[in-house]
């Protein structure tokens, strides 16, 4: 009996939501938990954009209301978040989730409820249906494949790993570094990156002579780098985010590989804090980074300049720290949603159609977006430039 009463009490926690005239936008992020380094900045950027819009009077006088749900990085919670936002809060669209896994879990729910979803997760498989992914992988020349079909209701603002990697490979090609070594972390990010690295190598005439792995919590990658040092590699590409970026940099430096085998990091390296933590070891490290890292040095006529400068200055003023790259994803996603709402008003299908068809040559902070029925990512290789660490600062690589 006791259990039963307790059980009932525990269950009796429901709430309702009221409705004034607002445009409700759902926001699902991993604000706490193991992925909070992704979700926190996303939340911060979203709140900032919400304030911009509402301070300017909202969308045709109607404010937007961001309903934020924290998934803690747990997929089951992402499922519940999506259901709550759609059913209880009746949002017009959902921005989220922070990671690929959680986004994948939310897809069936958004599709069934015919609610547009703009993900901040990285994988191409978020916007591309499984059968299309399989087709591309099974093709004879997989390095030439691009998706021909996308999930109807699902979009994302994250750049494709493939585009960053193509930028890296183009650089390697120009520098005549045809033999490369790759090191990837055994998380979703690293595994996907490794797939793309291997897939695209033939396109640029690149041969992968060493293929090393390591775990996200490993504290020493000297072993892997030692093998790479002994191989004919002319460059080493390290694909990871988080502290392992710094450990690899330090190990690479300690093994004296600078000048002989340049180190190229992923686009996750774009944070001054990484340079600070790695210290002198970071000198000469390369990475494909977005405009935000060198916006002050960029061409004044660059179409993304205004948007990027505004975002960067406001964020740094408000949160008193350097912009983490993940914040950009939330900014772009919400701004796209806002544009759609401005144009077509609170109608889920019309919003979806607008995003798919009208976001063309749209300058975001992460790149210039060109959404289309066969491309729900919108940003490509031109979102990146090869950047080098020179005396503790970002410089365009020569």
């Amino acid at each position, binding site marked *: 009996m006791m259990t039963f009463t307790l059980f009932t009490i525990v269950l009796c926690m429901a709430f309702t939501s009221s409705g004034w005239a607002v445009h409700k936008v759902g926001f699902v992020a991993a604000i706490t938990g193991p992925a909070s380094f992704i979700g926190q900045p996303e939340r911060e950027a979203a709140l900032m954009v919400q304030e911009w819009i509402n301070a300017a009077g909202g969308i045709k006088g109607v404010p937007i209301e961001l309903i934020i749900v924290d998934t803690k990085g747990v997929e089951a919670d992402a499922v519940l978040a999506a259901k709550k936002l759609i059913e209880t809060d009746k949002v017009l669209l959902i921005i989220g989730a922070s990671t690929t896994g959680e986004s994948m879990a939310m897809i069936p729910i958004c599709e069934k409820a015919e609610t547009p979803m703009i993900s901040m997760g990285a994988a191409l498989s978020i916007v591309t249906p499984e059968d299309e992914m399989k087709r591309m992988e099974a093709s004879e020349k997989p390095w030439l494949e691009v998706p021909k079909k996308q999930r109807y209701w699902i979009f994302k603002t994250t750049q494709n790993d493939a585009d960053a990697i193509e930028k890296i490979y183009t650089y390697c090609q120009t520098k005549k570094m045809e033999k490369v070594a790759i090191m990837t972390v055994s998380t979703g990010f690293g595994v996907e990156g490794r797939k793309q690295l291997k897939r695209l190598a033939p396109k640029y005439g690149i041969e992968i002579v060493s293929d090393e792995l*390591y775990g996200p919590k490993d504290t020493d990658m000297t*072993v892997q780098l030692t093998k790479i040092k002994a191989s004919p590699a002319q460059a080493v590409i390290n694909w990871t985010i988080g502290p392992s970026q710094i450990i690899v940099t330090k190990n690479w430096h300690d*093994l004296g590989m600078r000048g002989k085998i340049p180190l190229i990091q992923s686009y996750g390296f774009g944070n001054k804090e990484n340079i600070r*933590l790695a210290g002198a070891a970071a000198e000469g490290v390369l990475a494909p980074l977005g405009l935000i890292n060198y916006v002050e040095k960029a061409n004044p006529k660059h179409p993304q300049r205004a948007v990027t400068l505004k975002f960067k200055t406001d964020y740094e003023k408000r949160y008193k720290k350097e912009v983490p790259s993940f914040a950009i994803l939330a900014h772009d996603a919400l701004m796209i949603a806002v544009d759609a709402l401005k144009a077509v008003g609170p109608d889920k299908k019309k919003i979806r159609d607008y995003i798919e068809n009208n976001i063309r040559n749209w300058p975001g902070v992460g790149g210039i977006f060109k959404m289309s029925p066969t491309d729900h990512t919108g940003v490509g290789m031109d979102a990146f430039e090869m950047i080098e660490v020179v005396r503790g600062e970002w410089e365009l690589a020569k």
Partner: protein
Amino acid sequence: MTLSSQILQFFFTGLTVGSIYGMVGLGFGIIYNATTIINLAQGEFVMLGGLIMVFFTTVLKFPLYIGCPLTIVGVTVIGALFEFFAIHPLRNASLLTLVIITIAASILFRGIAMFIWGKDPYALPPFTLGGPIIIGGAVIMPQAFWVLGASMIIVIFMGLFFGKTIIGKAMSACSFNPMAASLMGINVRKMILLSFALSAGLGAVAGVVITPISLMEYDRGLMLAVKGFCAAVLGGLGIGYGAVVAGFLIGILESFTAGLVHSGFKDAVALVILLFILCLKPSGIFGSEEVDSIKKL
């Protein structure tokens, strides 16, 4: 780089990493010797050692030789408090409960660390400056010598403590038979407290020496605890030098697996070894079955 220098490199890396496992394993052994409890929060002492040292040196800007002993004392106190508030009240509870409470403590320490330091990794400057030392084509960092040196000193110290001093011998007596020990005038209560404090201090030393090499963050503790425990069991639970030797073995095996076989399965090495040992000879390399069966459980 020739194969022989590669192998030498793997060996150096394994040795460095292995000495950390050994130190954690030693910590497990000390508490086990006094109480037969497996303290799954052992790894958190290492984590706290590293992070508190960062606090003293980077925030309060204390020099190394002040920050170091302060950190060790600090974590030792934490270990003692842990025993006082969490272990002692449950001294008559089942083994199950005791294991769970150490898990709870590990979660709690991690939560507190996250609250104070956040999730970012923190670095410490190496104790001695200077570039890598090259031996036979392989590279070894000066800090690695500090790590190895620290573990050697600790092994010798523990050996002397448990073998030659009255307190040390008293502590071992407690785990064999606490009733007999207290009849002989040993304050079992104090011994248990001391074992936790000692173990914590040891963890702190490990944390302080390893942070300059591999940074430290709030959740490093668990993996270290698991591997340290593997070292402790492999060497013979409760046998100090056993844990250290086993730690080296595991570190080197991990390194060679990553280097010569497949880096993905590196973490599984320690675990597979653990399972094998448990099946074949649970008393470990240096342990003996008879001694184990006498110990109170």
